[in-house]
């Protein structure tokens, strides 16, 4: 067998990785044993966002777009970052250039800023999701483990769910012509992995875990922080929990 230089390098790289992987304790590998027999009755997923930790770097937005093949244009997001700026005259400025994917431009007139902060947004996987309620064919549905999903083979593309979501979490996929939104990386979490945005966040702003497990990181977050949710008055019961959320956040 003759190997080119490139093939040789590739092969040796892969074997080193494989050896490394084998030498690691099993628990650290992708699929812990207990997840191999994933039973959705045992889980109820919750998502935490610690606003004070977010630096608006946009790594989560990038990671999400790559992981989930979200169209790259600035009109389609499964997660995005908003920047709130409160001026001394109480004027509020909000922006989210390209969903915050490439970070944020320098602020102008820094002197009269009262405060400014970043707010990451995702689908809230509402307990009472209006999007599920309105879907005429049941293409949008809630799983037993509390995730709101869209079946792309069933969606007729009527966009009623997009109208019904109060959080702007949905869009119509420009090529597939079906409704799309955050799935909490369902393909990952059912294998024991964390959603890609949580993985990508360098500051630990994004927290994810099982609400049914008392010792999970999300339950610790809920116990130790003052928690708020978006648009509580609508009765949608969001499961994206925010710590340190300002009253101006919409």
């Amino acid at each position, binding site marked *: 067998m003759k190997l080119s230089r490139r093939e040789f390098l590739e092969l040796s790289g892969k074997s080193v990785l494989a050896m490394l992987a084998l030498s690691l304790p099993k628990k650290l590998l992708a699929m812990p044993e207990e997840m191999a027999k994933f039973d959705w009755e045992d889980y109820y997923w919750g998502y935490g966002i610690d606003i004070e930790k977010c630096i608006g770097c946009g790594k989560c937005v990038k990671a999400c777009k790559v992981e989930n093949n979200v169209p790259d244009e600035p*009109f389609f997001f499964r997660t995005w970052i908003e920047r709130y700026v409160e001026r001394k005259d109480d004027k509020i400025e*909000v922006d989210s250039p390209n969903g915050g994917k490439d970070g944020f431009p320098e602020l102008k007139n820094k002197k009269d800023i009262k405060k400014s902060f970043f707010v990451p947004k995702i689908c809230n996987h509402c307990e009472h999701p209006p999007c599920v309620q*309105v*879907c005429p064919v049941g293409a949008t549905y809630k799983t037993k483990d509390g995730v709101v999903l869209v079946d792309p083979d069933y969606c*007729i593309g009527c966009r*009623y769910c997009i109208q019904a979501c*109060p959080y702007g979490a*949905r*869009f119509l996929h420009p090529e597939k*012509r079906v409704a799309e939104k955050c799935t909490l990386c369902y393909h990952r979490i059912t294998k024991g992995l964390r959603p890609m945005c949580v993985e990508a966040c360098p500051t630990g702003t994004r927290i994810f875990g099982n609400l049914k497990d008392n010792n999970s990181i999300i339950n610790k977050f809920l116990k130790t922080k003052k928690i708020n949710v978006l648009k509580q008055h609508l009765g949608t019961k969001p499961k994206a929990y925010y710590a340190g959320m300002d009253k101006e956040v919409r």
Partner: protein
Amino acid sequence: MSEISLMLSKIMPFIQGFIYPNDIELHWGILIVLYPYITGLVAGAFILASLARVFNVSEVKATYRLSLLTAFAFLSTATLPLLGHLGHPERALEILFTPKLESAMAMFGFVYAWYLMAVLCLEIWFDYRKDIVLRSANEKGLKKIFYTVLTLGSKNISSEALALDEKIGRVITIIGIPSAFMLHGYVGFIFGSVKANPWWNTTLMPIIFLMSAMVSGIAMVMLVYMVTQWLRKKAVDMPCVDTIRLYLFNIFLVDFALEMLDLIHRIYAAEESFDVLSILMKGNLFWTQFVGQILVGTIVPLALLALTFLFKTSPSIRKSFYFVSAILTLAGIFFMRWNVVIGGQLFSKSFLGFTTYKLNLIGIEAYAAIAIAILPFVILSALIYILPPWEKE
């Protein structure tokens, strides 16, 4: 970059304030404006027909059949705008086969089918049965075959049989009135129940839709009647149009009062969304809302109609007043649908900014909308040819 993205990047410079990134695309366009407009015309025309039949308002008998045919012509096109806007039109029938009963929209197929089949088709058929049977006997060739098929094999036109037809027709109309209310009130509910959208989310929405539906349907029938009489070089039956005017005026007043009540309530309650909505009404919606809908489309036609009550006027002046107010009314109700559907999507659900709607004038959507707007009139002409509404005169 996809076509949609190209269009959206053209919209970008027009965005004001902050809008959720996914809200930049305006999801329901001109086709969804047409949908409630068309179903409204159906419900309104049908209710005018019912006046003649159930409430025995003999003056409007002249427009009874024309109203039914108008309702049918518009109803037969009502599904087209919906189909046209689906991302996957080929899956449309899933709404009928696997509906999710919790969804307001899922009911559409059933409400529609019920109204078309159980109400309109039956009522028209029973009303025209005698004419159809006579034609199947008197016509020749293809026409004969056509009308024979239309008789559905029921050729008895003895006076007892006709009396029975009359009775059944009455029962259908009585069922038809709540059905017409349901057809359009339900369309209002599709919008009114979206709590995410404060511009839509009001319990008054179904009832406002219903009232405006009656207004538009009555105006449409009056217009069609006057135009067909003119084309046939026949005199307009003045007691008939005078009576229609009476209904149009009164229902229009109630409709207007309800809409103003809604507006005043919003201003008085000044909820969270008030700021963004008032900017919307002063800005993007000013022309279509205050000028198009309220001034030109409501106050002017109402005033014209009022003048005909207040002053003794000659039939020819009245006719021209009716004609103009019918056209303005139809335009006004179209603006109302526009303001609801498009207006409700111009602001972001963040309540912090606005997007815009660019109707791509040479785009496929505009062509489709124009075609769908013309089609009912083509169908109506065909129907009038097949089942002339004026033989009973």
